[in-house]
């Protein structure tokens, strides 16, 4: 087939290059999807902000200059996105101020610290979901696994007493174990009875939520003297301390290093380890995996142990670094971290580095959205809309190419390959 592919004609070079980029490089599609996400976000700002609408409506009444309306539009959209950026990465003015005066560094680092704080559990849990996806398995139960990890780690962290050098690892391992216990159930059921993992994991989520309420209301685990659904506070020796000390007011904790270690582990595991190779073969072609002597049962159980373990780790890292206790709403807000993890893994194309970047993006949109809401009155939901649209477009690369007027040449050839071409 290679000899049948002539060099593109000069007139078509630029177009061909674009086609090549989109068909070859998923990164290009992701970036285009981001652009589209922010574009749609801007449309929503325009159509829902009274000031902008008034400016355009004014054109009909007073034949005013359209330039004014455009200016209002750009000002509003610009202000929204600017506050999103300054709220999640850094504020240049603030940074300049602290650099010139030598004061207020903490304040200028707060946005990025918040973003990293939110990203930490997302990175860990999404990596686990991504590993399962790469093996062709859908772990919809990451949320329940994270909650159970949080409970197990929370119990170890609040009810055991030992020096930090032991207590913190024991707490984290308890979290991983909790997630594994919850993950291995659908794994074993699928491997030995063929029960579909999606159904089992979804249903287990409900079981775990109920168990969470039971746990935080039980006398042993409930915060003494409280009647609310809130657990004992974890001992300081079991907490992941803030990176810059409690006095700085910056919340980013040593948990971010746990997250980076997980990304590194996942890269090694998927790209370099023999088991990871088995996982990828199983995900890409289960029949060939079987024929090559890979035991699908072993793989399925292992995937759910690892994916569940990482979810559990995410749960306990969250509890050990930010709240230091668990309550009845643990990790359930915002549709649940385990479900966000699915979209993050999709956006990151199930690869560790991609997941790291998309977790940071999701965290930044969430954190920046809050600043935007405070500064401009545009609701935080806009951030969710942008997240959703980006993932939607990433999931439909053909649509993205169509919007940017790129013919999906590769797709057409691929479809025809199934009809007997290309050999």
């Amino acid at each position, binding site marked *: 087939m290679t000899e049948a592919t002539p060099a593109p004609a000069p007139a078509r070079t630029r177009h061909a290059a674009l086609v090549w980029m989109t068909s070859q490089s998923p990164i290009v599609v992701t970036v285009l999807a981001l652009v589209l996400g922010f574009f749609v976000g801007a449309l929503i700002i325009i159509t829902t902000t009274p000031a902008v609408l008034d400016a355009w409506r004014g054109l009909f009444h007073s034949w005013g200059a359209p330039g004014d309306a455009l200016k209002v539009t750009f000002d509003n959209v610009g202000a929204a996105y600017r506050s999103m950026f300054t709220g999640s990465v850094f504020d240049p003015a603030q940074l300049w101020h602290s650099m010139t005066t030598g004061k207020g560094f903490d304040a200028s680092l707060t946005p990025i610290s918040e973003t990293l704080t939110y990203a930490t559990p997302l990175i860990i849990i999404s990596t686990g979901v991504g590993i399962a996806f790469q093996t062709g398995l859908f772990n919809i139960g990451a949320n329940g696994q994270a909650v159970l990890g949080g409970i197990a780690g929370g119990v170890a962290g609040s009810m055991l007493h030992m020096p930090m050098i032991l207590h913190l690892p024991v707490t984290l391992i308890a979290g991983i174990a909790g997630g594994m216990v919850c993950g291995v159930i659908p794994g074993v059921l699928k491997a030995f009875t063929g029960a579909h993992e999606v159904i089992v994991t979804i249903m287990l989520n409900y079981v775990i939520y109920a168990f969470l309420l039971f746990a935080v209301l039980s006398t042993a685990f409930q915060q003494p003297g409280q009647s609310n659904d809130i657990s004992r506070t974890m001992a300081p020796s079991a907490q992941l301390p803030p990176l810059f000390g409690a006095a700085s007011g910056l919340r980013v904790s040593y948990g971010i290093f746990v997250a980076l270690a997980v990304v590194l582990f996942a890269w090694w595991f998927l790209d370099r380890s023999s088991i990871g190779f088995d996982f990828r073969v199983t995900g890409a*072609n289960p*029949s060939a995996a079987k024929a090559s*002597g890979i035991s699908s049962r072993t793989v399925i159980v292992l995937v759910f142990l690892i994916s569940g373990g990482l979810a559990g780790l995410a749960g306990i890292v969250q509890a050990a670094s930010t709240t230091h206790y668990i309550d009845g709403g643990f990790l359930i807000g915002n549709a649940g971290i385990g479900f966000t993890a699915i979209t993050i893994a999709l956006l990151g194309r199930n690869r560790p580095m991609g997941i790291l970047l998309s977790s940071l993006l999701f965290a930044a949109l969430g954190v920046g959205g809050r600043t935007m809401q405070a500064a401009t009155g545009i609701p935080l939901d806009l951030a969710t809309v942008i997240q959703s649209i980006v993932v939607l477009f990433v999931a439909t690369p053909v649509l993205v190419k169509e919007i940017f007027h790129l013919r999906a040449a590769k797709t*057409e050839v691929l479809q025809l390959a199934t009809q*007997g071409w290309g*050999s």
Partner: protein
Amino acid sequence: MRLELRAITKRFGSLVANDQISITVEPGQIHSLLGENGAGKSTLMNVLFGLLHPDDGEILIDGVPTTFENSGEAVRRGIGMVHQHFMLVPVFTVAENVVLGFEPTKSFNRVDYQKATDDIRRVSKEFNLEVDPDAIIESLPVGIQQRVEILKALSHDAQLLILDEPTAVLTPQEIDALMEIMRSLAAAGKSILFITHKLKEVKAIADVITIIRQGKVVGTAEPSASESELASMMVGRDVVLTVQKEPFSPGEDVFEIRDLVVRDDRGLAAVNGVSLDVRAGEILALAGVQGNGQTELVEAIAGMRPVESGTITLNGHDITNASPRKVLDAGLGHIPEDRQRNGLVMSMTVADNLVLNTPRRAPFAKRGTRNLAAVNANAVRLINEFDIRTESPQELVSSLSGGNQQKVIVARELSRDLKFLVASQPTRGLDVGSIEYVHRQMVNHRNLGNAALVVSSELDEVFALADRIAVMYAGKISGVVDPSVSRESIGLLMAGTITETAHD
């Protein structure tokens, strides 16, 4: 109908699938389109049948330029297509299938089955296509099912019939019957476009042969042209059609099957009491029409399908119901029937596919971590040794041609330390050049004193490779014969009309 294709060009992206193809089919002519897989035959037929639109060129029917928006329009203009994979509803009767989509109706929109049945009787009588209109499709042999497809096309008053690789699923006897039908259709003035890559059939039936290579017409030939002439036009170079083999000197039994019973997915005994022996230095060919239990037999050997009863012994080890891992470790090499499904991971690189079933073996991995340098070095070596055409070991295997994909599997299996090789339809869909290559590799392997079982529904392949031929019919071995027997007697064994137990 006189059909003329003028300079048809079809591109997919930068790929030119059909490059200025011109063909004329005269009324009453059997025109054979010969080409390797991937030469552009199917694309051309899809253009002709309205499934694809040409980028350039014209279709003329009886001298009038015509365009088809879809296949329905092509059917209305008198073009009928018999697909390689039949488009029939298995639980419907012949009559119901034939009228499907064009049902004759009585009052209140009820289907007029009487008229449908009568129409079929009339058409089948007219063209000598014997078939019972009330028979249920799934109860009919494949050859008759194909007849129903032809009948269906004729009942829509087709003047030009496109037959796409029609003989792939037929026994030799059924092929003869099909050719008889084709001749009588041509005699009745119908035009036939016969697509194939089988040289013998082309010579037997065609009036005119057009040869396509890499999307271009490379020439036309008379049916009197020799097979090697046709083959070299098809491939673009000289081709050796017979394989050189050392004299047959069998050693001890390496592989033994006794009274094997294996069930298929529906729970029926697809393999029903099969016993076979393969000796060192021997290629045993398992001939037979597809779907007579060969697939299930091979899957059972490879550990991919449970054995109901009986035993499989490899090199003295009982591998009955062993896991695929154990079977591979016992020294079985397996070239699977469906290479893209069971043999390769299309989204992975050539290098990874070359170690697909040995990823943990030294030097490819050490203490759970893969040694990518060793994997790559292995790939470089095998790519050279087995002449795999790829730009690099890191190329995705999906970007290779079918022949080179098969070479990846052959290289992987033959480079392992094998006791026994099972090759299932090892050259299906490959071009003549790759067939020649794969055959030579398997014979080399045998010449080194190794045992092999080759499952094939292509008699040419069976005769090219076999030291002994076993024929499988309806889950049983209907005979084990010497390759010196005639094609006809093998054909009779394949059809199950005679059984013979001529063990040597």
